[in-house]
């Protein structure tokens, strides 16, 4: 499980769900949750929250161009790789925070990922859970 901490900067709600924008050291992350400020007290501007997402939901892009629907897209460097038959674990350095991505070994080979590479990592808004942080 990857975990980053940030501050809520915007909550946009429909009757049952919200799109939450969170500032993590200058980058804006988005998360969609089946909550609204009425059902979850922590959904307020200025509140500290942790963003959690599974390693297997983190995609990796190299030299990305064109348009993509994913809003959560950030720059990082590869710190290391651990390869196994089907899957490869990619250790990333994102603003000095460790992020792990688990992708198929085929993809890792296709992208010829190597230590030190500058890449972009991506995670869909509906894969990011929010965890209330004690302030």
């Amino acid at each position, binding site marked *: 499980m990857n975990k980053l901490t940030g501050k809520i900067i915007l909550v946009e709600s429909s009757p049952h769900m919200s799109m939450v924008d969170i500032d993590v050291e200058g980058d804006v992350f988005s998360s969609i949750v*089946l909550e609204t400020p009425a059902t979850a007290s922590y959904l307020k501007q200025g509140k500290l929250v942790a963003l959690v997402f599974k*390693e*297997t939901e983190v995609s990796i892009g190299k030299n990305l161009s064109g348009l993509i629907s994913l809003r959560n897209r950030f720059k990082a460097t590869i710190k290391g790789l651990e390869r*196994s038959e089907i*899957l490869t674990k990619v250790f990333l350095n994102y603003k000095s925070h460790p992020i*792990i991505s688990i992708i198929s070994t085929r993809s890792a080979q296709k992208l010829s990922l190597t230590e030190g590479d500058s890449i972009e990592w991506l995670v869909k808004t*509906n894969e990011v*859970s929010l965890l*209330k942080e004690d302030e």
Partner: protein
Amino acid sequence: MIKLRIKNEMHTPQGKEWLDLDLSIAKGEFITLFGQSGAGKTTFLRILAGLTQPQEGFIEVDGEIWFDSQKRINLPIQQRKTGFIFQENCLFPHMTVRENLEYACADKKEQGSIEEWIVAMGLKGLEGQKPDKISGGQKQRVALIRALISRPKILLLDEPLSDLDMNARLKLQDEIIRVYQKTRITTVLVSHDLAEVFRLSKKVFVIERGKITKSGSPSEVFVNNDLSGKFKFTGEIIEIQKDGVLNILTLSIGNNITKVVASDEEMSGLTIGSRVIVAAKAFNPIILKA
């Protein structure tokens, strides 16, 4: 309303422990005591029923003092009006189903309701049988009627379903829900089956080594509400298989066995037997008609 404050020494495999409880249960509430064996759950029921006398304390039920160690009040079992169902059925083996019920019915005026209960609990046709001729689930249904027939103020259920197979267990859970909805009798269930706790009770007290460590609704107590995930369950790890960079966990969740993957980082501090919360975003699961 039950108000209770008791202290009693318990002898457990880990040595001497104090059962030290201070709690109140609203009239008509269905609560569960949840905890490991030896935590003090059964002792609590026995104290409430008057089968065990605590060293110290005070029990008040609907304004009536049942026990007060300072004033030396200790209401005898017969006057406490509790219905008790134990884990193993305690029907008289030499009596038929009907005779067992008649024997329990101290008030002769209530005898007329025996037939009504027999029909309501699906035991019609079995009333002439001795207990060894009926199934475990049927025996516990007889025990349930027997506990209710004298119109107790409190129903005490000491893991009454734990010896039953899954089908009989679910069926008897339904009966207990039905009886509770009909009678609204204050009910205290002892259980260490999470699915049962969630299904039956609105409030749960967790007892660990003689003390209440948590209380609240089952989801407040067992589910971490600080996480936004809506697809969220509590389960137990029963198998861990390493495959490449991932671990495949087999989990027992309620009555289901599921598998999820976890990274080594997520696995830190977890072993077989660990209780875990499994959560996914509500957007991920696909739904198929069963």
